Structure formats: C-alpha cells, structure tokens
C-alpha cells in the first residue's frame, strides 16, 4: 500500500565527507597535541588563561576556531555533525577544553554575529576566535536566577554613556576576562522583559569590585561582581535599548544539540571506568562486579548513556534539517541530570570510605568518581534547574496551561 519513494534512510554512520573531516582533524591533533604544555593548576588563573587562549590560537591557525560560526565571520561554518565530530575527536585525543573561551565562543560571539553592528563585529569577533580576548557573562543576579528577566542591575543613560550600578553573580572568569556580555535594566516602568539592554562591558572599566565565589568543591572560577557607577559607552550597546532580552534569547536558538557532547563523552568514560573499578575492588572477598545488583545498575546507566548519545544524534540531525533543536534539548538535559545523580550515588556506594577524598586514594582511580558525584549535584541546577526545564517541556511541548 505504501511505496518507497527514495533510498534515503536514517543513518547513524558518518558520510565520507564527515569521515574526511574527522581524519584531517585527528591527524592535526596528533601532530600538535604533544607540543601543548601540561595543564596548569586549577586555581592558577593567570596561567590557565595563557593555556586556554594559547590552545584557541592554535585552533585558529589551523582553521578550527569557531567551528560552528559562519565563514563570513571567520568561523569554519561546519555542520552540526562536524561540530559533533570535532568535540568527539578533541575529547578522545584529550585536547584542552574550550575553558575560559566558552562565553566568547559559545554565547557572546554568536550573539554578536546575529545582532551586533558591523563595527562591533569587526572589533570583537576576530579577537574571540584568535583567543586574544576572553569574555565573561553578566546575566544572573542574586535575586534573578531562574527568573532571569527580573534582573535589577541598573544602567542609566548619561550622555554617551550608560552608568551601571548593581550586582551580578555566577560570572565565571570575571577576574581574568577582557569583556563581559551584560544584561542591565534600562527601564523600570515597563514589564520586566521589556526594560532590559544588552551591553558589551570592558572589564577594565572603573568602579567594579570582583569577588570570587567559592563552590562546594572549593574552586573559584565563579565570581560576584559589584558595580558602582561603572560607565560603558552607548556605542557598546548591542541591539536597541530595552531590546536586550530578545538579543540574549537569540543565542538560545543557536543550540544545535552539541551543548553536552563533551560532558556525555566524559560520562560514558566515567561509567566504563566505574565498571573497571568494580572489577578491581573487592567486597566480602570477591570482586564488587560479582554483585549482580551493582553490575545491573552500572549496565543500566551505561545503556541509558548510549540512548542519550542516540538522542544527541537525533537532536543534531534535527538541527541539521530544521536549523534548531526542538524538545530534544530540554529532554536531554532532564534525563542527563537525573542519570548523573544516580551515577554519582552508585559511585559513592562502590567507593565507600574512598569517597571521603577528592583525590585518588591508595592508587585507586577514585578521585574522578568523587568529583563526578559532586559535579552531578550541579547539572540539574546550572543553565536552568530541572524544575524550570520540566515547566518548559510541559508548557511548550505538551501544551499544558501556564501556572498563571
């Protein structure tokens, strides 16, 4: 009754073109990675900057910077699948991560590409791609987290400047960044989404107080930033005054399904390592892996990760077809957050007393599992809590009525 019209089929394999891309990338990585210096200590921010931006410059010189940026702005214009391959290969070869270039490359840069003036683009885009400038993000505030649009940090027009007074939080690498993409309130009289403006803030402006915010693991990449009459030229505004909410949301539509690829690959390795550890660790005289319950739980997680990898490929394929990822992105994050919590809990049960150390103990590779468990506590909070994500899925995808 139904006819087969074309021989096109769903295909999880990479095309010849994609394989060529992978082979070239892999060859290049094999060539250059030995020359990359060892990673600096996690709290040595000065040298981390040198390391992160140095790697970015190497990518730039080889034509891999801004892999998913349009060619006309200096990017490679790669497809989402090529982006996936890029992330796969750099992870597999243990190349440096995007590190402190992430706001510039993945958020501020794409926003500038979409919304900035010709001059702004010319000034900022090349320096982001080359690793010359590091960006940070000034969006969240102590009282504007899940409800970002309620932000209060005030910018008042004064001649050719905006004068900013207020506070931002969760600004990563603020102490080391050159620029900050900032959302400020420029009109308090209108509904909250309509009085927000998007600004480029040079981090050497006067009147800022940057205080590191220590996480529960003791790391200090996040900062609180206090603004006391900080002046930013009106020329640094991107988009119209009071149109900043739209400008900021533009970037969300850039999501091509690749946001969690590196995380995913690490998680898959983490589960494999956990299985290996279970084979090594003894419990009551035999390998922990002999415990069918533990084994089944690890295998279940491993299977779920395979499925999330398939979901990632679906999201990327959808992006390739339609230009954006639909419900898949939220679904992914919800499933992934929950899975990582279970993985973390399982890890700690296996480690038992070894979980009391953040570092490896006794020549057992346990530190990564403890770190992974703590990291898991943050996944369902950062970039939209699971509670907010569920609302989005329920309201936008399933069409359930808004709360009010």
């Amino acid at each position, binding site marked *: 009754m139904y006819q087969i019209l074309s021989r096109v089929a769903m*295909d*999880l394999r990479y095309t010849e073109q994609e394989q060529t891309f992978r082979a070239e990338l892999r060859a290049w990585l094999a060539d250059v990675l030995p020359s990359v210096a060892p990673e600096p200590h996690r709290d040595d921010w000065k040298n981390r900057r040198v390391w992160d931006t140095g790697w970015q410059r190497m990518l730039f010189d080889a034509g891999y910077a801004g892999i998913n940026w349009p060619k006309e702005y200096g990017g490679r214009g790669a497809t989402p699948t090529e982006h996936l391959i890029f992330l796969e290969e750099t992870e597999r070869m243990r190349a440096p991560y995007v590190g402190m270039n992430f706001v510039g490359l993945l958020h501020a840069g794409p926003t500038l590409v979409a919304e900035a003036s010709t001059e702004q683009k010319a000034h900022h885009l090349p320096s982001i791609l080359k690793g010359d400038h590091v960006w940070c993000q000034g969006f969240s505030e102590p009282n504007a987290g899940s409800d970002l649009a309620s932000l209060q940090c005030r910018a008042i027009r004064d001649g050719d400047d905006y004068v900013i007074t207020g506070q931002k939080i969760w600004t990563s690498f603020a102490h080391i960044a050159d620029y900050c993409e900032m959302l400020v309130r420029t009109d308090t009289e209108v509904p909250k989404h309509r009085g927000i403006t998007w600004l480029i803030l040079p981090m050497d402006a006067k009147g800022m107080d940057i205080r590191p915010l220590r996480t529960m693991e003791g790391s200090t990449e996040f900062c609180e930033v206090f603004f006391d009459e900080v002046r930013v030229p009106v020329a640094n505004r991107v988009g119209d005054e009071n149109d900043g909410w739209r400008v900021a949301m533009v970037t969300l539509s850039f999501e091509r399904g690749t946001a969690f690829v590196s995380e995913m690959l690490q998680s898959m390795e983490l589960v494999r390592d956990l299985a290996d550890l279970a084979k090594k660790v003894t419990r009551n005289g035999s390998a922990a892996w002999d415990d069918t319950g533990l084994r089944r739980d690890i295998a279940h997680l491993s299977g779920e990760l395979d499925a999330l990898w*398939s979901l990632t490929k679906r999201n990327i*394929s959808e992006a390739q077809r339609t230009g954006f990822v639909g419900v898949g992105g939220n679904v992914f994050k919800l499933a992934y957050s929950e899975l990582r919590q279970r993985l973390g809990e399982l890890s700690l049960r296996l480690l038992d007393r070894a979980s009391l150390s953040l570092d490896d103990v006794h020549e057992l590779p346990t530190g990564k599992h403890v770190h992974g468990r703590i990291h898991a506590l943050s996944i369902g909070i950062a970039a939209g809590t699971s509670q907010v994500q569920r609302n989005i899925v*329920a309201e936008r995808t399933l069409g*359930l009525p808004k709360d009010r």
Partner: protein
Amino acid sequence: MDFWRTQDQEALQDGIRSFCQGRFPIESLQPIEATGGRLDRAAWRDLAGVGVFSLRHDGFSITDSALVFEELGRALIPGPLTATYLAATHLRTVLEGADSGERIVGLAQVAEPVTMAEHLLDLDSLLILQGDSIAVVDPNSVPTQVVERPLDPLTPVHVMLSATGGEIVATGDVVRQWCREGAVLTAAMQVGASFAAIDLAVEYAKGREQFGRPIGAFQAVKHMAADMLVKAEVARAATYAAAVNLDGNGDDDLDRAVSVAKMLAGDAALFCGKIGIQIHGGMGFTWEVNAQRYWKRAVVLDTHYGNSEMHADALAGSM
C-alpha cells in the same frame, strides 16, 4: 549522519496512524475485551492489507517497520503482531499466508517460571522459541491450561503445560536475528504506547478542573507529564538507533543496541502507564478510561523477548 525520519518515513508513519485511527479506534477495545480478547479476522486481514506483515518483502527496512509498529503500539492493537510479521519475514515459505493475514502466527518463548502462549485460540500456527531454535506446532495440539483472568483482557493467555515437540523451522543466526528484530519491534510498540499514554494524560489534565483551574496548570501534574515525555523520547531514540543498526546503517554492537532499546522502552512504557493512571486520579483506575489499558499492555510487552531487567543483565554481560 542523519538520524531523523525521512519524508517517506513520515508519510509511512502518518499513513499507518490514520489507518489505525480509522480501523482500530481506541473505543473499539472495550468491545473486544467483552469477547475475551478474541481477534477479528477481518481486521487482521486489513492490517495485512496495508502491508503491516509484508513490509520487509515489500522493500521496507527494519527502521521503517519500527515506525509502523510504533503506531500499532500507540493504537494498542491486540494480537501476535511481531510473531506474524517475523514469520512473514523469515519463514515465508514455511508459514504461507502470514503476510496476507490468512495465517495468524503466535510465538511462545519458553521461560521461567512459566511458559505462556497469547491469543492461543485464534492462532493458526504456534511457534515455540527455546534457546536458539524455533519449532512450529499446531496450537490445538499443545497441552495448555487457560488463564481465567488475564491481566490484560486484550491479551488472553494459556499456560503451556508442555513446550516440547514440533518441527524445528529456524535455528542459530536466524533465531538470533529474529529475537533482535522481535525485541526492537516490541520496543517500538512500547514507545508508541508510551506516547499514547502521555497524550491521553495531557488531554485529561487540560480539561479536568480542580481548585478552579485545569489540573495541568499545577506543577505537580506538569512535572509528572514532563517526566513521562523524557522517558518516552529517550526510549524512542534508543529504539530507532537499534533499528538503524539492524538495517546496517550504524556501527554499534547489535545486541547491545537492541538491549538498550528494549530495556528503556520497557521502563518507559511501564512508567508512562503508571503515571498516566496517577494523573487521571480515581478515573485512571476505572475500566471505562483507557489509562489503565496502556499500563496493562506495558506489562505484557515487557515480558516479550526478555524484560527490562534481563536486558540490563545482558548489557552487564557485555561490559
């Protein structure tokens, strides 16, 4: 890499969905239950008429078939769908008429603690799957005991008192492939049933008012519905991936891909069935509302080709 339905596939799936809505509307299930879950041969022939059992010989892929079976699962169509499809695909000459709907073929997998045959009274041929061989027997010849009150009234069952004998019609690789395809098509039905349970619960949550607003406006209900969707979407990705791999269009280990699909589709269908009932409140527990039918079918399908836990164990074995 392209892991999204093609336009052809979309048309195929939409077409089957329309067919099911027309020929097997969800309201037709209660009358079937009243007959003890007996199959309607005319309806079965209509299934064959749209090509459900002959997909593979008509040139459609396993992935195409999974899309079709997703719709059969969504519509809760009763009967030995996978067994007849697989017989038509792999035992075409031995079991003539399976593809045309003339021969209804069932399959009973020898299992612990008990081996059960479904739809026995309506079968023309009964296959018995044990280890890596499949034998065919006359459904009237095997010693069985009827189950008076089946869990799913749309899936009448008999306990098989003996599961030996019959003529061996497939062994080895054929049976292994059969089981892979059976598991993936079952997973597809589980995925379809999951989405149907979600649709029903969401529809109810939009219309049902308590405390002055639709219950779907309450976060508790919203979040349950969102969790259902997450499980179903993840299971769907796994199921399609397994099918694509079985079609030779992937590089994954086949058994692993199949186990991931069956495991997660089983979890999803049971979860969506359960939460669908909860969202319906008391009405979810009534015969008249279909919410409970999705859960019951989920229980049945979980036991086909290895339940969720067995597939998790299989995954562990490969790690």
